[in-house]
């Protein structure tokens, strides 16, 4: 499949007030990629995700979806772009006053105008896909953490989005469920051609599902590697190798920022 750029990020900088989180991010996510955003704790992975999905305006730079600049688009155009975007938040972010079925049904009913019975069939299928068949009538408070996450994925997939942005898919899941989730993510890409952005530091996931990635460094506050995670593991930046081997290989991160030469 020829690489068609789906998300392009150009010179993106993000900050909270005076505190710069990340700056000068440049990368391209192609259609059908499973793109992994890696990095240690507190390096700005989630902030990058928020800038991608339209929750937090970056201080500089642009995010282009199929060539359309999100942050310079008008409200109506942003709304259209957002509709093609599915987001799974870290804790699931299910609406606690709605049942699982209602959580998944809300975006479908809001955007498609299908009759209720058809919406319910789609909801039943989405929940079955994440392994929650029959849990339609449960409230989020009655679910375990892993079930919440899977239900959140069902809601993120509700509208068959072109792009699925997932924050920490497998944290808090048992290894079998985590693997099933990874398989589901790959299957979504293979059969529906969904572009998937995964924010994670789960090594097993990174190496098994990702075919493209960036590594955000918290010391230099920018990206220090891009490309296939397997390549990064074999001959990437020492810091990335250090990260991907849980400290087994590569140099320990140098203390001095100025010694960094990208």
């Amino acid at each position: 499949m020829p690489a068609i750029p789906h998300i392009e990020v150009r010179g993106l900088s993000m900050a909270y007030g005076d505190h710069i989180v990340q700056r000068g991010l440049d990368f391209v996510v192609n259609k059908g990629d499973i793109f992994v955003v890696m990095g240690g704790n507190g390096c700005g992975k989630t902030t990058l995700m928020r800038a991608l999905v339209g929750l937090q305006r970056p201080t500089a730079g642009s995010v282009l979806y199929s060539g359309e600049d999100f942050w310079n688009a008008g409200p109506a155009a942003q709304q259209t772009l957002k509709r093609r975007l599915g987001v799974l938040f870290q804790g699931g972010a299910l609406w606690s006053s709605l049942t699982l079925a209602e959580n998944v049904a809300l975006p479908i009913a809001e955007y498609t105008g299908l009759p209720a019975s058809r919406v319910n069939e789609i909801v039943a299928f989405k929940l079955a896909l994440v392994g929650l068949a029959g849990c339609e009538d449960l409230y989020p408070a009655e679910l375990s953490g892993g079930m919440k996450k899977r239900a959140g994925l069902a809601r993120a997939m509700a509208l068959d989005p072109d792009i699925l942005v997932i924050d920490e898919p497998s944290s808090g899941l048992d290894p079998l469920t985590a693997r099933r989730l990874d398989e589901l993510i790959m299957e979504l890409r293979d059969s529906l051609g969904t572009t998937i952005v995964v924010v994670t530091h789960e090594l097993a996931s990174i190496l098994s599902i990702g075919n493209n990635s960036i590594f955000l460094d918290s010391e230099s506050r920018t990206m220090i590697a891009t490309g296939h995670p397997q390549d990064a593991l074999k001959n990437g930046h020492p810091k990335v190798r250090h990260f991907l081997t849980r400290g087994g290989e590569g140099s320990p991160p140098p203390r001095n920022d100025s010694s960094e030469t990208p």
Partner: protein
Amino acid sequence: MRDKAAWQLEVRPSSTDTLVICLGGRWCVDQNPPAPDSLKDRLDASVRRVSFDASRLADWDSGLLSFVSEISKSCANRGIAVDSSGLPPGAQRLLAMAQAIPEQKLARRDRGPRGTLAHVGTATLEFFRGLPRMLDFLGEVVLSVLRLLSGRASFRIRDLWLEIEEIGPRALPIVSVISFLVGLILAYLGADQLKLVGAQIFIADLVAIGMVREVGALMTGVIIAGRTGAAFAAQLGTMQVNEEIDAFKTLGISAIDFLVLPRMLALMLMVPLLTLYSGFIGMLAGLLVSVTIFDIGIFEYYTETLRALDFRQFAVGLSKGAVYGAMIAFSGCLRGMQCGRSAEAVGHAATSAVVTAILLITIAASIMTIVYYQLGI
């Protein structure tokens, strides 16, 4: 575009017991694909096998998947074999994933509409179940106060000061406005009645005794219940959601000592003070109305007020303020600590805290008024 590309569906028997479902065009959610119910009639006893032919299918998404999934479910219920090999490979794999984990039957529950009687019954049961928990909490608070008196309760003094600041000084504007208007209302009320006997100077007595003894405390109680009681319930409720209360418990630190005691002390200290302030503002309003509208001299009003008030009136007002403060703290903290683990539960806790506090305040006010009357205070 839509007409050209819309979904096509055709069902034809290929042999005596096999039904072939032919799919064509675009089977996407935005094309409003057909309901699977329309096909279920065709799945009668003569059909033993269902297969698919997707050779003319152009595009598909969940619209197709949910359709096929529903058909498969109906077939499974009727013992009909489903051969999905005619579907696109991606769809086959997704359908297989959806069927990999069986439906969790236990999770289903009856949420059908219930009668009024059932609602009343549930609410009553819930109320009586709530009473022991309320008593339990009361007991824990009493034990905690005993620990405090014996110097063994631990909380941070800084928390107490923060609460005092939040409850007292920050409530002054709203207490001022309400007290001023209530004082004004009392003065008008008195003026109207006292005019009949030509004793309008007694407006001063009415406003002074009314504000200091009863109304000041009651108004302050209601304001603080809405302002601070709800805030306590929301704070503690959110802490419950975040498992912060559990963290105290596992560390062996009494959450009651650490969270409830400072709040309760702060309220019992600040509500009486606010009551005093409220009485003062109310009397000021009475003075203003009497002097400007009813032609009573400033000094007349002043001396009459001093004559009406004595230490007893202040003691009654202050004691009521302290009791109301305790009621607000009790309801706010009780509902916060009982809070469930969801956003909805936090909202419910805040509402319930205010309702409980106002109910308890009114009950306490009635009892104290009767008792003080009987004692002649």
